[in-house]
């Protein structure tokens, strides 16, 4: 059912397609996000002191939880957009879901990497079967599954519809995996090792920097999502462009036939 929009999008009379992914709003957002990241770097590396126990490692805490938060945020956006796509069949909701999952996968990977970097000196190994690490790794695999399905070589409606069903399942899957992994680990130990080894809440600056980290990372996430969405939208428009030409070419077959009487062959026989 996406095709009617596909065609109307290809020739909105007189409206020129944008030739970039920026707009005044996104430029402002970009500058704000950049400034916020700059401030975060200053807060995290200059203003904040080393932690008594953790040393410099504690600075990862300004980034790691915020990354994890955007990864989960991306899942919720993807599921909401997928539900919308199944209800209305709009092209935009499919593109939004796909953009969110793609960014979510990047954020999940960064979460894993920062967690692992923090874990190496703390635990002495790169990986432990910690509940939170394990369910984050599973989340990464779920997101890769969505991306694999979205990449299949099939008609656009088929691809977007199937991806949307997978997108709807994303949040329930994340919750179920999270719950089961949590219980699985609490059989033997505390669910997560992360919480126990800090003594934070002491310094106001520390808390502020951590919360500010959430703000800055969310801003960057929004900026990236906006642009990824617009790239998807432009791709979609380019794909729609061929349609007029293809219909013209197809009609030319009919004209050729009625003029010289030679049967045209070729094309798809269905």
């Amino acid at each position, binding site marked *: 059912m996406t095709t009617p929009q596909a065609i109307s999008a290809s020739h909105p009379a007189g409206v020129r397609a944008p030739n970039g992914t920026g707009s005044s709003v996104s430029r402002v957002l970009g500058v704000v996000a950049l400034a916020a990241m700059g401030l975060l770097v200053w807060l995290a590396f200059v203003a904040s002191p080393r932690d008594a126990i953790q040393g410099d490692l504690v600075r990862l805490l300004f980034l790691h939880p915020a990354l994890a938060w955007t990864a989960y945020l991306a899942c919720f956006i993807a599921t909401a957009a997928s539900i919308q796509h*199944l209800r209305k069949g709009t092209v935009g909701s499919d593109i939004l879901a796909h953009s969110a999952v793609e960014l979510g996968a990047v954020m999940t990977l960064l979460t894993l990497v920062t967690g692992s970097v923090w874990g190496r000196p703390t635990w002495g190994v790169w990986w432990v079967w910690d509940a939170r690490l394990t369910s984050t790794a599973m989340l990464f695999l779920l997101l890769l599954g969505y991306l694999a399905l979205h990449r299949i070589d099939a008609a656009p*409606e088929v691809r977007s519809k199937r991806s949307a069903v997978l997108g*709807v399942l994303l949040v329930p899957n994340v919750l179920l995996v999270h719950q089961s992994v949590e219980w699985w680990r609490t059989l033997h130990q505390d669910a997560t090792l992360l919480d126990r080894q800090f003594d934070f809440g002491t310094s106001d600056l520390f808390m502020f920097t951590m919360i500010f980290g959430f703000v800055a990372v969310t801003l960057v996430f929004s900026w990236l999502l906006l642009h990824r969405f617009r790239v998807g939208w432009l791709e979609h428009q380019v794909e729609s462009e061929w349609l007029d030409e293809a219909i013209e070419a197809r009609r030319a077959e009919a004209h050729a036939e009625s003029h010289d009487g030679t049967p045209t062959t070729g094309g798809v026989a269905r």
Partner: protein
Amino acid sequence: MLRDARLIAAKDLRIELRSKVTASQILPFALLVLMLFAFALDPDSQALERATPGLFWVAVLFVTVLAVERSFSLEGGDGVRDALRLAGLEPGGVFLGKFAALVVQLLVVEVVLLLGVLLLYSRDLAGVGLLAATMLAATAGIGAAGTLYGVLAAGLRVRETLLPFLLLPVLAPVLIAATRAFESALDGVPSDGWPWFNLLAVFALVYIGIGILTFGSLLEES
């Protein structure tokens, strides 16, 4: 909807009776997996015995992938998908029918597998109530998720590689919960296992619900 479900399930089971693919290929494959585990884990060190619940459910997951592929290769034949749409069958009914037929076949395989692990890995049967309940709930969840992901991958050129990659991560909660519940049952402490049974039941209900709701749009695509 239930009428359509019965019709589809009866048709799938009749196809199995006539073709015997599950009986002659999938079931022996499940037993083969039990042998492979024994080769991988030293049978003398009691590793097999300790890992029995987990190995059982891993074997079930392998079987699931094959059974789901079989279930949807039936519908991949000669324009059958179009015919299902032309017949005006209710999508929810088609989902429940495919689901029911898959669950019945999986349960048969699981019973044989259970006998296999008890015999080959020398475990004693215990906690039968919990074992049976776990098997039913876990299989309902596996069947519902398998049916839904099966149709997601059906008809694609990459379906054989895509299906396990999409399905198995999703079944991780079932593997965890069913394994723990089996452990409790076989270790003789069934009371520890019932919370896991609850998780399995929730999983099954979530997937049956989403399956009924979304199957329509999956059959509807052209």
